[in-house]
């Protein structure tokens, strides 16, 4: 195993731990994107350029947009509930 592969593996292990341990979902999205870059480097070093291309494209673009849009929808729904509760108590 080359030194580059060992470094990439350690980076991926740390990145995965970071994704799970971050408390706020919004920050977790950002850490997930960085974890995707670490995975891309790992896939590239494992001689898999097709996989690296699809991983960077998905984790840098597709997944954060979906997660951020879902978080926004949840916050909208929360505001709606708060407004409905406020009207109900009046």
């Amino acid at each position, binding site marked *: 195993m080359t030194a580059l592969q060992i470094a990439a593996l350690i980076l991926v292990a740390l990145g995965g731990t970071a994704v799970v341990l971050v408390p706020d979902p919004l920050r977790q999205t950002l850490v997930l994107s960085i974890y995707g870059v670490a995975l891309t480097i790992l896939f590239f070093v494992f001689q898999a350029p*097709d996989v690296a*291309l699809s991983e960077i494209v998905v984790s840098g673009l*597709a997944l954060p947009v979906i997660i951020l849009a*879902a978080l926004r929808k949840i916050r*909208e729904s929360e505001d*709606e509930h708060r407004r409905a509760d406020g009207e109900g108590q009046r």
Partner: protein
Amino acid sequence: MSRRVRLGLFAVAGPGLLAVLLIGLHGLPAFGDYHGVYGLLVSRIEPSARHATDIVTALNFDLRAFDTLGEEFILFASAAGVALLLRRMRDEASVERASGIEDHRFAGASDALRLASLALVPLLVALGGYVVLHGQLTPGGGFQGGVVLAAGPMAILLAGRYLALKRIAPQWALEALEALGAASYALIGLGGLIFAGVYLKNFLPLGTQGTLLSAGMMPLNSVAVGLEVTGAFLLTWTEFLDQDLLVRGGDRT
């Protein structure tokens, strides 16, 4: 079940699972010591048999094209599921939303962001088309290129021109695009059945290795999958972004 019960169960079962995983993975051959036969066989016969220089794409769209058909339908079903769930929610929402477009962040995009996003759109579409079409020559293909292609209209959204995005990519067009991609992949397979006797067998002329129109039906399959992935991702994104709310105010141009 409460969080404490969950964590208790995990504390009991987790170490057991970890031990099983480590012992099981230990039984694999050492890293780098490759014992498989199929991979070696494919690498040896594929360039002369199919005239494609990217063996991964050749497996994806020709030799194991049936598996890709299954994956395509997972994609289709997930996009349909998202559309079904979120549209039903929107129809049920009877509460008139008070927040107009003024306090919405799309209307407040700065000029630098708008300019940069609009400059990115043709670049992304060109790059996406390039990656899709060159799947059989270099790393690429329908899956990767499809997501990059979908990023093009998304950059218009970043520039704050949501109504322009709605005009370019209305809901029915995205659904049609996705369905077209999925259907054309299945129909190309049918061509293999008619002209070569086996479903999804490569029946088009193979061409010269290294040119754009080589490897028979691989570029066609790649384009079909690219269309479907583009349609699916754009549909998913716009479903989450809740067009009805944003359309009511009109965006600031």
